[in-house]
Structures are given as structure tokens and as C-alpha cells.
């Protein structure tokens, strides 16, 4: 399955895009998405390791399974305020 991953702030700048498409085997987890994204997009790897992943607007841990219709985003350490 292909999933679209939204990118913000430095992640967007490093990837040169605000969304990337990642090919995953069905039933893949957030942890597997992280590994795949780091391989497919090496400039993101370092920031990715410090970032959270959001699925459908909530923080998700690495064991969370992904579906093709999930809204997925990389959340670098936040700095609002």
C-alpha cells in the first residue's frame, strides 16, 4: 500500500516537499514507516529520529498499525508559543 506522509517545518525543508508517498506492505506499523522513510529520504533520517508521528491527528507509537486511509504526519519537536 502507498501512504502519504505530511511534512512540516524543517522536515518539509529537508525533503523539499510538504508530502511524501511511502510504499509499505499492508498492515505495516509506524515503526516500519519510520525505517522506510529514513531509507527512502536520507536527509530526513536524523530529524525523523527526534520526531513524533501523528496518525489521524493524534500522536502514535511505533507499534500502531497503519491503513491506507490514515492521515499520517511527521511531527518534529514542536516550538510553538
Amino acid at each position, binding site marked *: 500500500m502507498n501512504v502519504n506522509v*505530511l511534512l*512540516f*517545518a*524543517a522536515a518539509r*525543508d529537508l525533503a523539499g516537499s510538504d508530502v511524501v508517498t511511502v510504499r509499505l506492505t499492508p498492515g505495516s506499523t509506524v515503526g516500519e514507516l519510520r525505517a522506510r522513510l529514513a531509507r527512502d529520504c536520507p536527509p530526513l533520517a536524523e*530529524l525523523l529520529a*527526534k520526531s513524533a508521528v*501523528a496518525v489521524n*491527528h*493524534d500522536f502514535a507509537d511505533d507499534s500502531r498499525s497503519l491503513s491506507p486511509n490514515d492521515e499520517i*504526519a511527521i*511531527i*518534529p*519537536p*514542536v*516550538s*510553538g*508559543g
Partner: protein
Amino acid sequence: MVRLTREPIDYHALTESVRDPHCGAVALFLGTVRDLTGEQVTVFLDYDAYGPMAEKKLAEIEADVRRRWPVGNVALIHRLGRLAVGEVSVAVAVSTPHRAEAFNALRHAVDTLKELVPIWKKENAPDGSGEWVHQSVGAGCRGASLGPGPKDGQS
């Protein structure tokens, strides 16, 4: 009430919006754009957000504050886009029957906002260079006395 906006924040109106006849205390926090972070001069900040998730997290903070304190009203608003030094980037206002609750609820709301809400700032220097701020703790408060827990943070 929670909101993201690209317009200047009317913090007087925001403060009025939380006033309540049952509440003898109103507390307001403003985050403003600072000109210096350590040695680094900032001329303006760019704020970016993951809008739908940021609004959801702000609403969760509002609900959490209402659950934990006897709040009359609470309002959180964050500005996005380009802000000059001195402009207000965030405003949080809360009303409660007594002042201790207002201070505690306000601090919790601001600290949680800075910890969890997907908003990012880019510091832009006089030479035209800019850098996203991505420290994992106390990202917006380098130089301030941020401790390890949300209760210790300050801006």
C-alpha cells in the same frame, strides 16, 4: 475557545471573552517575539502549524483545564505566519473563582501548549538566514529557566 489565526491577536477582547460573574480572577498569558536568543539576533519569526491537529490538541488542552480546575472560561489562541519582534504569538486567558486556580490553570495550559501542539517557529536573523527551532524540550524558551517537567516551564 481555541483558535489559530493569521491576524494580530486582540488580547483585550480575548481577556474580556473569559470574564464570568462567578469568577473573581482572570489570568492572561502573552507570548511575544523576543529579539535575542542567547547571542542570536532575531528580526522576525515564521510560525507554521499542522492546522487540524493543532486545533484538536488545543481543544484537548481546553477540556483538560476545564476538568482539572473550576474554570469559568478558558481561551487559547495562537498566531501563524510572519511576526516581527514584539508581536504577540500566543495568548491564553482563564477565569476561575479564585486567583490560585487561575494561575495554576493558566500555567498548565501554556506549558502543555508548548509541549504538545504541532506548531513550529523559524527564527530569522538579520543576515537573511533562518532556522527552524526543533529542540525537544523548552523549544521556545532557550535561556529561560525551563525544567524537565511542564510545571517548571516559563516563557
